[in-house]
């Protein structure tokens, strides 16, 4: 199966220059981008699957001797292409702050506690139906220095490969109903409301486990459409 990559699909992405997000000012090209034909170099891409992950990679609450503090959650969903077809056997890398809104990263100076039982990095590979699932702790909101009283809504960072170099995606998953949404320039850098809402997970009672953890569902749609749509068989 070959995929095509319509250019208009990429219009969902934010612009690299977004005034509200200060750090973009010196980090975006000012020359127009050169339109690149999709050659073999673009329609191929790194292929990494089940051989690269370990079971504990998908449970961020089991990576240390003790249990991390915070609200245990289960995040699951499907990785799909634009036609809604599952993207199987593809790697997701996730990273996040702990329940107090603090990252393990050395550069994070937010005066909130580190949790010795939580690193906040995980990996998971989609199954044959494009499904993934990992267990973690609900991350806290955290302050940043973009503007006065700036706080990031709670989010989990996602990195995905998909079928080619053109489907590569780094994004953030948000939680439904976050009161910080109207104030966050990174979230609002996606100017189309429908596209923006595709970054918001939904609470799901079916994947919530009694006496254990809340379930959130986050489906991810990567670039790419089926090049040769199959004719539906007709019986009549």
């Amino acid at each position, binding site marked *: 199966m*070959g995929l095509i990559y319509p250019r208009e*699909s990429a219009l*969902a*992405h*934010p*612009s*690299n220059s*977004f005034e509200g*997000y*200060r*750090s*973009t000012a*010196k*980090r*975006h*090209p*000012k020359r127009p981008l*050169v*339109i*690149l*034909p*999709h*050659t*073999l*170099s*673009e329609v*191929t*891409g*790194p*292929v990494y699957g089940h051989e690269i992950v370990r079971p504990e990679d998908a449970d961020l609450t089991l990576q240390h001797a003790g249990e991390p503090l915070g609200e245990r959650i289960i995040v699951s969903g499907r990785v799909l292409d*634009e036609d*809604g077809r599952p993207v199987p056997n593809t790697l997701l*890398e*996730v*990273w996040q*702050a702990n329940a107090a809104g603090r990252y393990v*990263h050395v*550069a*994070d100076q937010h005066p909130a506690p580190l949790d010795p039982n939580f*690193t906040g*990095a995980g990996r998971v590979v989609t199954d044959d139906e494009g499904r993934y699932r990992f267990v973690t702790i609900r991350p806290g909101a955290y302050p940043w220095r973009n503007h006065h009283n700036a706080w990031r809504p709670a989010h989990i*960072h996602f*990195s995905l490969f998909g079928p*080619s*170099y*053109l489907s*590569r*995606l*780094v*994004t*953030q998953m948000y939680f439904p109903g976050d009161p910080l949404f109207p104030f966050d320039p*990174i*979230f609002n*850098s*996606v100017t189309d409301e*429908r596209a923006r809402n*595709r970054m918001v997970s939904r609470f799901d009672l079916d994947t919530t486990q009694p006496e254990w953890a809340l379930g959130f569902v986050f489906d*991810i*749609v*990567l670039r790419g459409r089926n090049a040769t749509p199959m004719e539906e068989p007709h019986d009549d």
Partner: protein
Amino acid sequence: MTDGITPSQTVGPYFAYCLTPKDYDTREIFSADLTTPAIGGDRIRVVGQVLDGDGVGIGDAMIEIWQADPEGRYAHPADDRARGNSGFAGFGRAPTTPDGMYAFTTVKPGQVPGPNGKPQAPHIAVTVFARGMLKHLYTRIYFEDESANAADPILALVPDEEARRTLIARRLAGEAEPTYRFDIRLQGEGETVFFEA
């Protein structure tokens, strides 16, 4: 059908302990050394600096590269030309140092097919991620000592000589291993040519 793709968001400043965790106790699955014991061809290093619009090195960037093997074949199902069993995956990832430097060890890629059956000059596909970038940027590394550059269909899309030069890595003299220098300037004087892919 779907409503559309999931939009990109910045990789942010705190990705290293997951994506490039050399300095953390997280297991590293991708490296800046793409070579395998069985790979043939010419071993090379590619080094450079990632710079912002003020010419200051960007210390929280991540560079990913994707390339063909020395015979010009990609380790991917869409490339159906037969491959040897070299284990060469063709993908590498490197963080930048505090002053914005990155370095890869790899092999010189071969020529790969291009549009209308024309071969492309040896090149490496590059993606750049950083705090302050809401989506990654695509560029390409070509090599200054390749005569095939003159006929490359992608380089031909950049007629301005000075701009085209930003896509061509310079061979450094006096290095023990063949080393190419490829700086990435996100903005301003000598801005790198980036592609809409």
